[in-house]
């Protein structure tokens, strides 16, 4: 398996040089530097810590050069009569500057090229483009969701004049256009950069978006009779540099400058797209893709992006609950855990079975595994979650951490689980722990059968058919409410960090399991995820040499060290 998953629909990667080692000399704002040949000027300048503002250019889309914001002054080496560059006192080529500015996004660097990103001409070009973009812009920042992360706002401050010379009437265009299931378009805000059009034609290839009319009256629209509804449509909201495309889910909900950002991963399928969680005051407001070329490039699917509202479900389990006289009552954590421990002590380890979850983190699974080993519990499995999947990012594995569960020896692909109904009915299985919010009723064990158990302990964040019959319910934390790591279907170890606190008394599951272990078997406390990693790295061969810190924001590829049978899946 290759180091990187290939993203077949990503047509371009302009930010990656063809050959990073094939270097040429270029002069950027007076300083000679070495840069990979052919890299475009916007990217080369970026590497030289010089920002060339741009709207239409996106490193993952074709280059069309329509916004003209990236104009720069270009020079080529002066040639002598011998057709060789004339060298200056510094031994570097003398540069002949072209009178006409060039676009940085479509110009690849060549040996001896001169680049000016800050000259009076360049400033005038940017100033001109800013003025042009603003004359027909509605300037409704006060009610625009993009405000605060709008390139038009940012570049106006940076490169504009702050006043308008335009006294004519502005062009009127459609507003509040229902472009699709999840997206609203404001054509007056659109700066016609065509990023969304190119996304639709090049990445998702449904080719639904386009422009109609000419000149300043040009208008973005969906093909007549079609809706912009593909499974990745919300990525256009991210790449739209202005507030023209807004997400129905997020619009008018929260000012972006109030959002606290945390680095996370999507846990809605086995791909584990890297995301940024935007939250405020304990509430998640949005997920946006975080670039990771080895996983999701700059994209994520709409399903994963919007699959966080369950965190605020009013049914959320907020307190430990214990069952008495057929009813659940809130209990302090100590009481609930004691009740669970008591129930487990009454049965033989061989009569205990655990339903772990491939939605749990490696850390949670590790704490569980250690405790099971100490206790001598061997019956364990996970619940499979097969999905449709697609050719792009969505995995056919609906579980985000199947590989991690396999790695820790806690998953048997649901094969064992399928026999447990019979075991319970036969009285051979007396205690069941169902973790990570799994629902064994949905997985095929009838509730009536579960009722025969001496003790059923369930951890979950939302009630389900299993929790309904459980003796003890332990409220857990959702992906945004905890920290941990997972291994995606491609064998990449990735971590995520807690963004908000779980509601009420709910807790991260590794803490729940740690405390349960302390009560049942005793043992040293683990105080942090870092602590868990210290043990994991010594016990799990694949994690040898790794630590929480070393996973980093982009994850670690484990394919070379993963056991064969895990890789084969």
């Amino acid at each position, binding site marked *: 398996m290759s180091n990187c998953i290939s993203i077949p629909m990503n047509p371009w990667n302009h930010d990656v040089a063809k050959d990073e080692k094939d270097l040429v000399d270029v002069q950027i704002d007076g300083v000679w530097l070495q840069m990979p040949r052919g890299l475009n000027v916007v990217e080369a300048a970026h590497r030289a810590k010089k920002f060339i503002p741009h709207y239409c250019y996106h490193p993952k889309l074709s280059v069309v050069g329509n*916004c*003209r914001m990236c104009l720069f002054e270009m020079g080529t080496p002066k040639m002598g009569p011998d057709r060789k560059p004339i060298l200056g006192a510094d031994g570097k080529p003398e540069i002949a500057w072209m009178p006409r*500015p060039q676009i940085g996004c479509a110009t690849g660097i060549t040996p001896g090229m001169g680049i000016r990103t800050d000259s009076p001409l360049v400033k005038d070009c940017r100033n001109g483009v800013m003025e042009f973009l603003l004359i027909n812009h509605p300037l409704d920042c006060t009610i625009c969701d993009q405000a605060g992360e709008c390139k038009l706002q940012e570049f106006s401050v940076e490169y504009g004049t702050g006043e308008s010379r335009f006294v004519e009437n502005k062009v009127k265009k459609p507003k509040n256009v229902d472009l699709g299931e999840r997206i609203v378009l404001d054509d007056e805000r659109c700066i*016609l950069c065509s990023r969304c059009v190119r996304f639709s034609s090049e990445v998702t290839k449904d080719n639904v978006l386009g422009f109609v009319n*000419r*000149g300043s*009256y040009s208008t973005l629209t969906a093909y007549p009779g079609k809706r912009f509804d593909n499974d990745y449509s919300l990525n256009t909201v991210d790449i739209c540099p202005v507030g023209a495309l807004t997400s129905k889910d997020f619009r008018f909900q929260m000012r972006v400058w109030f959002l606290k950002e945390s680095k996370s991963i999507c846990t809605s399928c086995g791909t584990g797209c890297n995301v940024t969680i935007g939250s405020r005051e304990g509430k998640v407001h949005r997920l946006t893709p975080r670039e990771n070329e080895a996983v999701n490039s700059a994209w994520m699917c709409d399903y994963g992006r919007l699959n966080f509202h369950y965190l605020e479900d009013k049914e959320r389990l907020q307190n430990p609950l214990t069952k008495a006289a057929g009813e659940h009552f809130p209990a302090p954590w100590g009481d609930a855990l004691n009740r669970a421990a008591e129930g487990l002590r009454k049965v033989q380890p061989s009569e205990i079975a655990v339903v772990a979850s491939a939605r749990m983190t490696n850390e949670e699974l590790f704490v569980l595994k250690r405790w099971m080993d100490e206790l001598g519990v061997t019956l364990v499995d996970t619940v499979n979650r097969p999905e449709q999947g697609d050719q792009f990012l969505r995995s056919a594995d609906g579980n985000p951490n199947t590989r991690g569960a396999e790695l820790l020896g806690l998953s048997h692909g649901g094969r064992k689980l399928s026999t447990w109904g019979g075991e319970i009915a036969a009285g051979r299985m007396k205690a069941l722990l169902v973790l990570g919010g799994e629902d064994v009723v949905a997985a095929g064990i009838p509730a009536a059968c579960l009722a025969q158990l001496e003790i059923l302990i369930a951890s979950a964040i939302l009630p389900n058919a299993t929790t309904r019959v459980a003796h003890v319910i332990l409220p857990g934390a959702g992906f945004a409410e905890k920290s941990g790591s997972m291994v995606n279907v491609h064998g990449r170890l990735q971590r995520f960090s807690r963004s908000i606190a779980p509601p009420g008394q709910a807790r991260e599951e590794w803490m729940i399991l740690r405390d349960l272990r302390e009560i049942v078997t005793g043992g040293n406390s683990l105080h942090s995820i870092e602590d868990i990693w210290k043990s994991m790295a010594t016990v799990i061969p694949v994690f040898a040499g790794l630590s929480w810190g070393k996973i980093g924001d982009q994850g670690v590829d484990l394919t070379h060290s993963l056991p064969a049978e895990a890789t084969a899946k």
Partner: protein
Amino acid sequence: MAFSEHRLIFKNIDAPGYTRDIACYQKHGGYEILKKGLAMGGPAIREEVKKSQLRGRGGAGFPTGTKWSFIDPAKTTKPIYLICNADESEPGTFKDRQIIYKDPHQLIEGMILSCFANGVKLAYLYIRCEFTEGWKILEKALAEAKAAGFLGKNILQSGYDLEIHVHRGAGAYICGEETGLIESLEGKRAYPRIKPPYFPAVLGLYMCPTIVNNVETLCNVKHIVEMGGDAYAKIGRPNNTGTRLLCVSGDVVKPGYYEFPCGAITLGQLIFNVCGGIRNGRRLKAVIPGGSSAKVLRAGEVYKIKEKDSQGNLVDREVKLEDLRMDFDSLAAAGSMAGSGGVIVMDDTRDMVECLANISTFYAHESCGQCTPCREGVLWLKKILSRVAEGHGRDEDPALLKDVADRIAGRTICAFGEAAAWPVQSFLGKFKEEFQLRIRRNGAAAKRDTISLTH
């Protein structure tokens, strides 16, 4: 002094009894040059075209031989396409339509020769949609040529195959810009492509090497093959060879289309002798010499032009407007261009504010809308100019207009940006007092600060 035309391209056009069917064309020697060309071979034709110093007649005046030399049929593995640009939409230009309507086979013969020379097996004739009749004429002429064995498989038993398809535009000026044309031909919006990397010779139609030439240019190829490149280059002046079709419109006694060797006559001779002078006994005020995009020239102007003297030394010569030679280099030296050959003459009754507002209205309507400076700037120019023309000008408007135009030209994807900016820059530069006067006269209205709501 009589100024008799030198009709090469227009030789048979309007000649009594000349019809556009293939029989008539052949009776006048039609398709004989094709036979000659097929016998010469492609490389030899290319050599003759290079020697002829023919420059493109579509507007930019780019040397055709050089354009063709960017493509080497012997080395190219992809198909090579040739497109005849018959979009003729530059205001003031009406020469290509004469050829299409009255002598279509001349164009087709020129096209076949050019295709043969460049190893082209499939060519397109992109015609503006407004030429409805012209389209039918071309379709019929192509069918005739095919029936006669000049098109299709194994042309005249030479082993060379060629198909030519006519494609109709949908009514947009920008479809005349060669890369916009190519996009349109591919079935997309005519958004001009960025160059680099999409030079037609490298990444043209369907990303294959492509030659785009104007109707008149391709007709010239036929005559070059006929008389040889050297003989052709003797017509006109060095670097400005061959004849030029001139379309004169506006305030002259005899507007129309004329053909002269490049630079053989002056602007003054064209207006006052050939076209019978200014109408109604008025005086010349201004002339746009190469289609509406070209910079305007003002009567009474004197230009400093570098020219070679009899010893071949470069010397400065002062040339009056009337003495400007009608060729590429002289008009460029005067700060304008020969462009598409559309000469628009304005007399002293013309209001320059309104003329410019009219021109800008055209460009605001035709900007494709792809790139920011042109899309937003050109409509802005039009709005200011309409407002000024309607009597709501402000003192700052001329400077603003100039500034907006300056920020369009040279910063856009295609040359439309210049085409729209040049008229504004030149009208304002040369008729400044007229704009100021207009604004001052309407000062009272402007002071009321009521900006017209009609535009």
